[in-house]
């Protein structure tokens, strides 16, 4: 075992349970709790604009964590993640409108329905892997978009659907944005906690084994088809929940919100954040959505400069700049922001010495 320099000196593992702990030192536990408390406290300080950005960050962090489970942990490539997020949104809307469920009842369903659909599209994984599975998820995207567009009696077609936030619960009115943010943040924390925990379970280790060498994993007795399908299922569950809480903020959902381009950015910014760690997933989501926010902020400037061409210019610039970021990061730093962050932490810890 290599010496782990990511820890303060004097912290050694003397048994397996210590090696499996999430927070290895009390300081880390304290910092994490302080950070989460800060995230909650921020709701009462900032205005609604910041709240809206934070809600988007939270929702996409959940979705990106789901993709991290599929791609970062289990090593399967999904080109339909945005579509599964859309399935989550639509499940929420359909169960609220046609069945009359409230938000709380529809939320688990908004995870389970994409999970089942994701597992169905993962079934080809029984025989194929890698690139071929990416094609299967690409097909999933087109089938889902077609179904939403044309199953008009249920999904309203291209007109989109309305969904509702939960009403008043325990005296908290979730129609007010900051309380809804607290709800979304709670869901995010719970989901990310489960994802973090997953990597320590039997299933999580099976995912990593399949990613690293699927033949070796099979030899060791892991049912790889089962594992891959389950990875798709869990990842799509996360995507669905992300879509449901995100759509709940806008109280409206439209099929045009999840394009193939979004699925590609999902994958691209996952790599920008860093594969194989929850921190990387959150970093990727935050970078992606910050860029989105930045591009809407600079739209008035481009409009002033370019006049009528501004619409094309901002759409084109976002395509060009995002893809350049993804390509440059993949070529120069394939391990993403997470790796940089580890390097920074390490050099801080070892300060006077270079290594």
């Amino acid at each position, binding site marked *: 075992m290599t010496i782990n320099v990511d820890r303060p000196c004097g912290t050694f593992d003397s048994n397996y349970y210590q090696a499996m702990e999430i927070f290895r030192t009390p300081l880390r536990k304290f910092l994490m709790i302080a950070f989460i408390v800060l995230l909650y406290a921020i709701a009462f300080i900032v205005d609604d604009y910041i709240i809206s950005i934070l809600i988007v960050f939270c929702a996409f962090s959940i979705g990106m964590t789901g993709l991290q489970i599929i*791609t970062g942990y289990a*090593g399967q*490539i999904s*080109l339909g993640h945005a579509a599964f997020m859309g399935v989550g949104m639509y499940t929420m809307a359909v169960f609220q409108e046609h069945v009359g469920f409230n938000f709380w009842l529809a939320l688990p369903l908004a995870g389970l329905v994409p999970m089942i659909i994701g597992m169905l*599209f993962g*079934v*080809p994984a029984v*025989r*194929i892997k*890698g*690139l*071929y599975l*990416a*094609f*299967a998820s*690409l*097909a999933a995207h*087109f*089938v889902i978009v*077609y179904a939403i*567009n*044309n199953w*008009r009696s249920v999904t309203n077609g291209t007109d989109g659907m309305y969904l509702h936030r939960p009403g008043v619960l325990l005296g908290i009115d979730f129609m007010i944005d900051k309380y809804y943010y607290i709800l979304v943040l709670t869901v995010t924390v719970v989901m990310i906690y489960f994802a973090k925990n997953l990597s320590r379970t039997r299933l999580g280790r099976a995912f990593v084994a399949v990613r690293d*060498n699927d*033949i*070796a994993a099979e*030899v060791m007795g892991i049912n790889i088809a089962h594992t891959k399908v389950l990875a798709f299922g869990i990842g799509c569950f996360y995507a669905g929940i992300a879509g449901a809480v995100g759509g709940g903020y806008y109280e409206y959902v439209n099929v045009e919100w999840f394009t*193939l*381009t979004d699925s*590609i950015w999902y*994958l*691209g910014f996952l*790599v920008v954040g860093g*594969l194989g760690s929850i921190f990387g997933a959150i970093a990727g989501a935050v970078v992606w959505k910050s860029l989105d926010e930045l591009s809407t902020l600079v739209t008035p400037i481009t409009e002033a400069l370019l006049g009528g*061409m501004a619409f*094309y*210019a901002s*759409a*084109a*610039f*976002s*395509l*060009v700049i*995002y*893809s*350049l970021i*993804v*390509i440059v990061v*993949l*070529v120069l730093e*394939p391990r993403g922001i997470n790796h940089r962050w580890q390097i920074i932490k390490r050099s801080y810890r070892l300060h006077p010495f270079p290594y």
Partner: protein
Amino acid sequence: MEDLLKGIMLGLASGGIYALVAVSYVIIYKSTRIFAFSQAGMLVIGSYTFWQCLVVWSLPIWISILITLAIAAAIAIIIERVSMRPLIGQPILAPIVVTLGVMLFLRGIALLFWHGEVEGYGEAFLPLGVWHVGFLSLPKIQVYGFIICMLVIALLISFYKYTRTGLGMRVVHEDHLVAQNLGINVKRIFQYSWIFSCAVAVIGGMLLGNIQGVGLDLDANGLIAIAAVLFGGLESFGGAVIAGLAIGIIQIFAIQYLGVLFPGEITMLVPFVFLLLILLIKPYGLFGLVRIERL
């Protein structure tokens, strides 16, 4: 009977272009084992560049074609050198994400320069009009398009078969290391593959621009061609041609006969449902190489 023949003719016409685009994927996959999603973006770039030369600058047709091919080659060299070569030896996710990124980059470039408006070549490229053969009416652009597609593919296959570079490409397809040891410049072969592939994709873009109108939506054809590549097998030219034509015919028949059952636009749905079926039944396609792996 009449409907059947008409369907087959229409299917062959669109299938010819799917075959051409499928071949452009196969060229790169054969030598580099990378699936170049970016070729879908090359279709858009090719059609717009050709339109710019031919209609806006009203250059002669041969010069326009040469300029378009030259730009395609330049883009191919840049993509290969800047973004693909550093990824040699990386896990399969990296080239997939990068080629997808390049696809969106090319789309962004096209949007930046041409604002996403749908244009047409008019009379400038291939002659318009219709031939009447019995009860069939054949649009001339589709017939010419089909012939050009088949000619380009035949040219490529004979290039692979009869030239020294083509032989090198076939060796590289077998094994990169062995090819390197035999004194073949593998990196150079990669570069040639990208150039040929982009040139083929650009020709596909020109023909598509003539039939469907020059626009950003042409990259959908590139995605449909993925189903064709997979059906034919990722490494086979013959397979790509047969599968491309088959996808074209299946698409037309599905629209004709299943359009009643499935409302709305099913041009994109049919190839991808077909793709899922292939993945379930015969994942390595008709003529694809089934790689046997071991620990």
